[in-house]
């Protein structure tokens, strides 16, 4: 695992973070639930909680889909290529490429859901980008969520040991959890979000 230079993280007084979706995207509840699941994966292994806000002005994190140039100096490049990017703490911007074809998988964990395709699993990318929002850089461990690349049709949503060690270096473990060694069922967790 790695960190951004200077190891930025959300301050100690900010353990309950809120997120909102760019209203112009008009995302369905189904899409929003994907992000809720993605936030939950990080909440399970940290003291952080994530709650959805309807106001992008009050939210710590704003999520949006954009195409091409979208004002942050990092234009998207159309289908495939770069899929998304996110800022380091405490900026809280998560941008996804609106020109991608995104797949919403309903909770399956399978490593490869499709043969080679240009459709990208949204939850896999969301979990990765949230790692950046919390302060993690890229990892060389191929099984880690924070590995920089993913093939179309691949699904990787479970935090690896490397991801958990990295994020717990920044925030410590979940005081109500087991530190991520063996994960309790997600349904029994209370981690905020809108699910």
């Amino acid at each position, binding site marked *: 695992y*790695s960190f951004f230079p200077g190891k930025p993280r959300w301050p100690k007084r900010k353990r309950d973070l809120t997120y909102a979706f760019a209203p112009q995207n008009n995302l369905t509840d189904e899409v929003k639930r994907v992000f809720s699941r993605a936030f939950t994966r990080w909440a399970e292994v940290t003291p952080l909680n994530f709650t959805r806000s309807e106001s992008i002005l009050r939210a710590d994190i704003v999520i949006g889909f954009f195409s091409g140039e979208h004002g942050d100096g990092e234009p998207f490049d159309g289908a495939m*290529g770069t899929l998304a*990017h996110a800022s380091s703490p405490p900026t809280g911007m998560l941008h996804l490429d609106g020109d991608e074809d995104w797949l919403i998988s309903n909770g399956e964990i399978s490593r490869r859901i499709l043969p080679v395709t240009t459709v990208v699993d949204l939850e896999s990318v969301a979990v990765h980008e949230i790692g950046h929002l919390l302060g993690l850089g890229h990892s*060389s461990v191929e099984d880690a969520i924070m590995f920089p690349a993913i093939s179309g049709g691949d699904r990787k949503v479970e935090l690896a040991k490397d991801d958990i060690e990295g994020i717990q270096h920044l925030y410590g473990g979940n005081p109500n959890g087991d530190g991520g060694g063996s994960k309790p069922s997600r349904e029994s967790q209370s981690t905020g979000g809108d699910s």
Partner: protein
Amino acid sequence: KFYTNVSSIPPLQFLNATQNAWETFSKLAGCHIGENINGLSKLKQYFRRFGYITTTGNCTDDFDDVLQSAINTYQKNFNLKVTGKLDSSTLRQIVKPRCGNPDLIDGVSEMNGGKILRTTEK
């Protein structure tokens, strides 16, 4: 566009699976230092975008020391055999879709180097 299940994906998405802005890099296989090949400037822009090249100015089509150094670091970060060459396994990795955040910031990479340091500390 969002697909809510696998069966809703049209067959065209499978046929177009290799179409990607970076797929043209595949034709650079086998290039080596000292050569001038059309397309290497685009590859240098790719490496600059992800932090592997920090020099400013126009990218040329020369396979120079700067590009070789970028390839070396990239191969190390992606657990590839460090050859400094555009071999097929390196190019297969380069063309994969990826996160837009750079791997190196200010020319510093902890992707693999950091792991070695932490192991030593333990």
